[in-house]
């Protein structure tokens, strides 16, 4: 893995750890942000909000520690895709909402959608540059010459 790829993996992990760190102090506010997207049933909003934050933490830590980095980057890419579609759908429907992406109450705009798209491309790039799951070691693989 090149130095650039390592830096990108570390940066992506740090971004999402930071994003989750801004939400943990006020999980109730983040749940309200999730509710304002109006794509999750109200009864599921608190659990979905808590899960989103936890997945951001787990994936961020995995990326920084380079453990299952490809899987972590793909999870974050999937999350970003959902965020982007949800945000664009809300804006297209004329719903004013706070993004909730990095805490705070700043209103979401089409620039927020563009930022999410850039992050999505970034996450996909990190996933592409991360090695796939290691194949079984040749020493452990069955030796075809000894096969009956």
């Amino acid at each position, binding site marked *: 893995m090149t130095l650039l790829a390592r830096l990108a993996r570390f940066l992506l992990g740090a971004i999402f750890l930071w994003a*989750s760190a801004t939400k*943990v*102090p*006020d*999980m*109730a*506010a*983040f*749940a*309200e942000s*999730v*509710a*304002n*997207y*109006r794509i999750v*049933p*109200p*009864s599921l*909003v*608190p*659990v979905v*909000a*808590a*899960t*989103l*934050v*936890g*997945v*951001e*933490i*787990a*994936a961020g830590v*995995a990326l920084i520690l380079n453990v*299952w980095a*490809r*899987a*972590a980057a*793909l*999870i974050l890419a999937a999350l970003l895709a959902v965020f982007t579609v949800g945000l664009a759908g809300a*804006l297209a*429907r*004329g*719903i*004013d*909402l*706070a993004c909730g992406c990095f*805490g*705070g*109450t*700043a*209103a979401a*705009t089409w620039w927020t959608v563009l930022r999410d798209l850039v992050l999505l491309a970034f996450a996909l790039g990190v996933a592409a540059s991360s090695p*796939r*799951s290691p194949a079984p070691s040749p020493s452990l693989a069955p030796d075809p010459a000894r096969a009956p």
Partner: protein
Amino acid sequence: MTTLAQMALLAAVGSAVGLAANALSPHPSALRQPVLSAAESGGGACAMPASGAASTSAPLPWRPARIGVEEAKGMCTACLAGFVDARGPHEFAHGHIANAVHLPPAGHPDETAVIAQLRTYPLVVVYDGDYSCAVADDVAVRLRRAGLTDVRVLQGAWPAWVAGQGPSAAGICGVCGVEAFGK
């Protein structure tokens, strides 16, 4: 282990971590209590400047005061206040406070005329549809910078106005006889 299995395991671990983080949060979300969107709840918090979510946003040089729905309704029916709708164009088109002008954060194509119209009122009330009133705060600050002296933000935003059965319209104002400045 395949990448898909790793993703599933990360998601499972993340879910547990998220629930633990929620339990440890100073302001946890009640997991068994449904959370409605601000528009559905009919009572957006629209916190006062000194408390709640609005106080955690970046400090502004001037923070607009709040005005309650009942007081604003009286000012509206007496035509003593100009109302500014800071929501998106679709929500404005679906319904807004009677006589409100549409002035989203992105601006208005004829903003000078809009501000000139607002100057004729002793009080300007800005509202949005968000529970935190963040958008209305931004627009109110802009109007203040444009020279309007008494600019306030509607407490509870549009959901509170609807819940309070304030005069509302879509298009032409039925109260003051003025055409709304919708885009």
